[in-house]
């Protein structure tokens, strides 16, 4: 076997930090951190729905009022998502090539189900994020959402969310997607410490426990919103929300 079964074409102008095995893993981990921090912030903001329409609409109006900052955040997040996915896909592609023939007897040594499902959970989260943006940010499924304003003249985000989630299919999809997000992060959070060289025998059980706890706190937090709407714990006061999808 020749020594140079070359698999890596290194881009000559940039550092191997962007092309090497470990460099790309670092980028996946660093962008993962940004995305997790965003999720924490996003969840805290969304929980304002439990404080009622006024709180949620005020929070939404506040976000909109910080237009420039909002764009900075959006661009950072978009960059992180693109880098995260691009590098995981190239790593994944090489990993598949590195094991051309499978074993006859399968043995899931050491690995967890969360680790093995990273690609499925990641891609579902991606599909979900696109749907989520189309639904609530671009409001492309229900353009009438754009016209809903509350008594103070603010965009009625509360009514939009409650209306959308009163459809069991929409809520069901959200619940599944945030469940898969919880699985992604069940491996991802502890994993990123190992990738960044911040883990060892002593810390690993702590990081794994902590990662699992944070992942499922995020799940419970995000899931609580569609679940509460479905259970009728959160509802609109004026006018019955008719399900926009299945009527």
């Amino acid at each position, binding site marked *: 076997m020749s020594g140079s079964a070359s698999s890596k074409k290194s881009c000559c102008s940039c550092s191997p930090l962007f092309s090497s*095995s470990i460099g790309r893993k670092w980028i996946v981990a660093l962008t993962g951190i940004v995305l997790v921090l965003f999720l924490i912030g996003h969840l805290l903001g969304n929980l304002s729905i439990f404080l009622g329409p006024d709180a949620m609409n005020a929070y939404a109006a506040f976000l909109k009022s910080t237009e420039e900052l909002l764009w900075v955040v959006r661009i950072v997040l978009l960059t992180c998502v693109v880098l995260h996915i691009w590098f995981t896909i190239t790593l994944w592609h090489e990993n598949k090539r590195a094991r051309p023939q499978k074993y006859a007897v399968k043995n899931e040594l050491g690995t967890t189900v969360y680790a093995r499902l990273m690609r499925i959970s990641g891609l579902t989260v991606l599909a979900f994020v696109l749907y989520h943006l189309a639904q609530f940010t671009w409001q492309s499924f229900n353009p009438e959402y754009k016209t809903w304003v509350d008594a103070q003249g603010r965009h009625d985000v509360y009514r939009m969310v409650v209306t959308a989630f009163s459809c069991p299919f929409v809520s069901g999809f959200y619940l599944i997607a945030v469940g898969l997000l919880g699985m992604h992060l069940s491996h991802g959070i502890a994993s990123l410490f190992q990738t960044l060289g911040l883990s060892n*025998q002593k810390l690993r059980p702590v990081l794994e426990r902590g990662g699992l706890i944070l992942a499922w706190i995020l799940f419970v937090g995000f899931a609580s919103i569609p679940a509460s709407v479905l259970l009728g714990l959160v509802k609109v006061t004026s006018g019955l929300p008719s399900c926009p999808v299945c009527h």
Partner: protein
Amino acid sequence: MSTMNFHLRLWKQKSASDQGKFIEIHATEIPSECSFLEMLDIVNNRLTKEGKEPVSFASDCREGICGTCHMVINGVPQGPGRGAACQVYMRKFTNGQTITVEPFRAGAFPIVKDLVVNRSAYDRIIRSGGFITEHTGGAPDASAILIPKPVADAAMDAAACIGCGACAAACPNSSAMLFVGAKVTHLGLLPQGQGERKKRARSMVRTMQEEGFGNCSNYYACEAVCPAGVKADVISMLNREYVRGELSVAVGAID
């Protein structure tokens, strides 16, 4: 001396380009004190007597220190329990059990014949950075260089690696990170390894990629099978050492 019977499925493959297949063998009257490799010796002797071709497998020291033996027993590289394949004993199996033996599966370890793969890729990784520069001549006084005990211990734990290849065989991505991490940790922790420290991780990782090993997904399958008990801490250290090395180069640091 009690004997046992087994139903063996052994991988037969003429060469790297050949399509291999399992052969089924009823191995009877195997002394329970046999090691796994001794059991294969008995089976091979019988095959030879019957005028059939024996099943090739590699071994050397048969005491778990050289890292030559390599095979996957019932889906576990180097077989059940700690230790290399030569440290597996038939009494660990149940009488009548079906035992499937396959070669290591990694693109970077091409099959030579049957259960034997070519692990030279690991040698080429070593050649690219798994060494230190040292004066030859009279052996220096062992205590001439003081090394704190915890550092010496951690370096020794990593130095336990016997280069067997089980880590890449166990990893779903066929990644060699445990092996490379063991070398980088072992040499990088000790004063004697400082000269090449920044270069070492970079060039070993580059060779690892060129050889076609996959990337680490932090599955920890390597750690679960390593016969030398090398821990994934060495991968964490490799991840640090590598980026430190690349950053030094990127900013134009001297060493």
